[in-house]
């Protein structure tokens, strides 16, 4: 774990020790709620059901997302790559 984690302070963070195959690893998921438009793409592309949609009364379409369990993440990066709004950072 030598890489520098560069997640701005206003991001929400989730962390967990994970296992990818046999390899022990650690994941830090950063999420920018203000930028999130609740499109649900991260929920759809994640192969491990790490993300879920939740109600958000302050958003125009009434929803955002959150991490259910960071320990399930396998760092495939699909959510980070496919979020159209620059809201997810996986380290």
């Amino acid at each position, binding site marked *: 774990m030598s890489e520098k984690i560069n997640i701005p302070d206003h991001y929400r963070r989730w962390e967990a020790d994970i296992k990818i195959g046999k390899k022990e690893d650690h994941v830090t998921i950063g999420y920018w709620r203000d930028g999130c438009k609740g499109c649900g793409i991260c929920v759809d592309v994640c192969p491990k059901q790490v993300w879920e949609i939740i109600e958000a009364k302050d958003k125009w379409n009434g929803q955002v997302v959150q991490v259910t369990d960071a320990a399930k993440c396998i760092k495939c990066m699909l959510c980070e*790559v496919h979020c159209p*709004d620059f809201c997810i950072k996986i380290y």
Partner: protein
Amino acid sequence: MAFEYEKYLRMDKIPHLWCPGCGIGVVLKAMLRAIDNMGWDKNDIAFVSGIGCTSRAPGYIDCNTLHTTHGRALTFATGIKMAKPAKHVIIFSGDGDATAIGGNHFIHACRRNIDMTLVVVNNNTYGMTGGQHSPTTPIGYKTSTTSYGNIDPTFDICLLAKAAGASYVARSTVNKGKVLEKYITKGLEHKGFSVIVATANCHTQFGRKNKMGDPISSRKWIETREIPLDKARNMKAAELEDKIITGEFISEEPEQTYWENYNHPIHEYTEAYQGIIEKAQKKSEGENK
């Protein structure tokens, strides 16, 4: 490891104006990662667009950017490349911008094989103006101008680019962000005119009229129609109707036959143009002696 998009964005303009889940954001991100793969100085990049939802991208990118008139992105870009041949010129265009109003400029930029990279975000419609049908709206689909279903046959932008003389041509979709990044990177590396088509969802304007008004079902509609080029080669035309053929349409393998690469350009335009400038300068120096 997370990618630092902030390095290439005007963060005071983000969140962008695109609808929740709009495919353009996914393509823009692939584009920024591709630029990063090249390791270029931001000041050496000129990023040009026309008009449309797709064409709003220059507002968000922190480099030399130009938001031009509808369909004319390639003409402005050509001017930049001729005046500043050392700049890396990238054009970001919609299907309407590149192949409807700008179709003429498109084929001639391909023909000249100018060393620039064009990324076409093909969402099968005019997203910005209310979802009219475009030259890539599939037959049978509804748009605000084809309420009973479209009857106009479509352009295959990749085959069109190839026939017109572009020298790197590839297509992928918003479901494959990393593949888009790879193709755009190859386009940027390529010397000559490169065209990368990114099939994308406009669920708000196009999807909504075709029972897929949310980003997920529009993305799935694209995914179920993707066919890799190698597989498509052995399929009948009728089987390929309404399919999205993905892959690299022109690579520079020397073993390619004439028909596979029949219109392979003989030279790159920027260099040829520099040659003309030098000739003219020599001639006028001679006359002034």
